[in-house]
């Protein structure tokens, strides 16, 4: 909060107090946003139901179940005498997480390697970059079956093919941002390194890579969530029903019976994305303690 800033400088004792408050206010902001979103959902539902509006779609307990019903679904058994929904969903989330993480790592390595390659060759950058960009304009839904089938015919297991698909979504932001980051160091630093007759290798590791880290982490955060999407989409054509993609297909089929189960699955998908995002953000904090972003 900007108006706190001046007070913070005013007195050292006050500073300690204010240090706690931003943390609290951050938490409060999250809470307010969540409450507002929930209120918007329930408010929309209430308004459309009481007025009987049907545009753009009919609103009732099937199309928009109450939020508390969705949360309650986690504790309901899927089948008589079976475990609560949360258990098979967590199993599915773990399965999908494995595909997503494998894809994320593969995509990050490939993306970073591409960036290193391109930063050292103007010709390659000019030649390859348009195709890298073009690769992302092809819808993932069209590519998914091709990748799965192509790799499947080479004897690659289904989940690995799905990981490749996740990597397809993750390499792009990493490559583009890392390329930018590798070029981002102060030109004077380059001149200094060159005056020491530093090799390309040492310029890369001592100057380019450290300078690229903030860019890289921004890209990795985007990739973390994208890898989950890639994994979920890839599961269907890969004949995998153990993951969240399989759960979505299944609960979609029985939507009119158990609409809350599909919504609960969606929540798990979102949480999985958030967890991966959080893991990258945490790593970023640990690696970039002194990064320019955190000076402020």
């Amino acid at each position, binding site marked *: 909060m900007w108006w706190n800033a001046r007070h913070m400088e005013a007195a050292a004792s006050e500073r300690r107090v204010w240090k706690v408050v931003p943390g609290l206010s951050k938490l409060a902001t999250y809470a307010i946003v969540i409450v507002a979103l929930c209120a918007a959902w329930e408010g929309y539902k209430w308004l459309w139901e009481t007025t009987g509006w049907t545009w753009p779609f*009919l609103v009732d307990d099937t199309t928009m179940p109450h939020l508390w019903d969705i949360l309650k679904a986690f504790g309901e058994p899927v089948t008589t005498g079976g475990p609560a929904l949360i258990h098979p969903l967590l199993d*599915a989330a773990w399965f999908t997480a494995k595909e997503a993480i494998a894809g994320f790592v593969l995509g990050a390595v490939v993306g970073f390697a591409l960036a290193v390659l391109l930063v050292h060759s103007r010709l390659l950058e000019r030649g390859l970059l348009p195709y890298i960009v073009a690769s992302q304009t092809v819808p993932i839904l069209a590519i998914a079956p091709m990748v799965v089938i192509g790799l499947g015919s080479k004897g690659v297991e289904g989940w690995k093919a799905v990981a490749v698909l996740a990597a397809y979504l993750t390499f792009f932001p990493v490559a583009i941002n890392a390329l930018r980051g590798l070029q981002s160091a102060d030109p004077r630093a380059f001149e200094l390194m060159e005056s020491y007759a530093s090799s390309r290798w040492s310029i890369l590791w001592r100057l380019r890579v450290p300078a690229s880290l903030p860019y890289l982490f921004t890209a990795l955060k985007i990739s973390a969530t994208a890898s989950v999407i890639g994994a979920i989409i890839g599961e269907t054509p890969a004949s995998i029903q153990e993951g969240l993609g399989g*759960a979505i297909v299944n609960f979609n089929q029985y939507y009119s019976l158990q609409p809350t189960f599909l919504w609960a699955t969606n929540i798990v998908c979102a949480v999985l994305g958030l967890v991966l995002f959080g893991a990258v953000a945490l790593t970023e904090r640990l690696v970039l303690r002194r990064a320019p972003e955190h000076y402020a």
Partner: protein
Amino acid sequence: MTRVQNGNHAADGVARNPEEGELRKQWVMAVAVLAGAAFAAWVAVAAAAPEQKAATKVNLQLKWVTQAQFAGYYAALEKGYYDKEGLDVTIKVGGPSITPETVVAGKRAEFGVDWLPSLLATREKGSNLVSIAQVFARSGMTELTWRDSGIDTIKKMRGKKVGVWCCGNEPELFAALNKNGIDPKNPNDVTIVNQPFDMQLFLKRQVDAAAAMTYNELAQVLETKNPKTGKLYTMKDLNVFMMSDPKVGTGMLEDNLFVRGDWIAEKANQATAVKFLKASFKGWVYCRDHRAECVSFVLKSGSLLGKGHQTWMMNEINALIWPNPKGIGLPPAGAVAQTTKIAKTYGVITKTPKGATNYAYAARAVAQLKKEGVDVLGKKWKKAVVKVTPGGK
């Protein structure tokens, strides 16, 4: 560490200290023993492997995700029937973006399960696929109306909103409408609504009639509470027009097993096919006689499925297979011809297919099972009464 220090260390590292030398010897021994043990284990494993006769690996591509519609194959797997025939079968589940015909034509599975009209259509596009067994002897397709709507004959669907599944699933109903003087292509006769794969439109009464499979969507309606009474809907709330009912008489053949034409042309594969059919049929026979156990096999592979719904499905699937006067896997007389005729009339195919079916291997499998004393006809089988559960749980 500087280079000089490095050099020193390397130079006197070998024999400076006799104790150190002793330690090293022990290490070498330990590694040698471990390596020896690993080698012995490898030899043992390698020697044990050839004793088992290498099983023939085959894949079965299902039409949809795991559900009781495919219980027979899961039973054959669980009960070891495939094993006994020397087959190592992998069941590949289907899904919204999987067409079994494409998978089999692309050599990613040897066997596929799909509806017969779909196979005929794929064949016409140039894929050499052959149906080798007609597992479901009759159609499970129905059209539902609410009893209180008064639409108690197909004739009365004139001028109504009639829901149909798209993309090759329309012909049975279209043929039924046509038989009753309603032209499905003429909007003045009837409004055809493209129905999604759930029963929402029907439950919300946004259509007057809706397509439903006996084993799935019909149950979904019955598993839903009537908001007016707070109780589950019952059959008394519905009119069910079954396409296989002689009064409607426009049923088409559904789940069949098919293979590639060039694959089955090879002698060795013909033997494999007979073995596969024999074990699969045995699985279906098992599910006829052990309904509850087969449901548990299905639930084991599909952890998100509801037991109530699958129990209903198992019973209704059995009703599509049993009884079969010719033996499981063999279509009733005239059924293939009727399927072909309706498919041709409604543009699923343009010409009468030749060589699309070959039931010789199924007949051989049935004959072998008969010899073993297995009841392949199911004459005495009676449909059970399954109580629906709220939400299909």
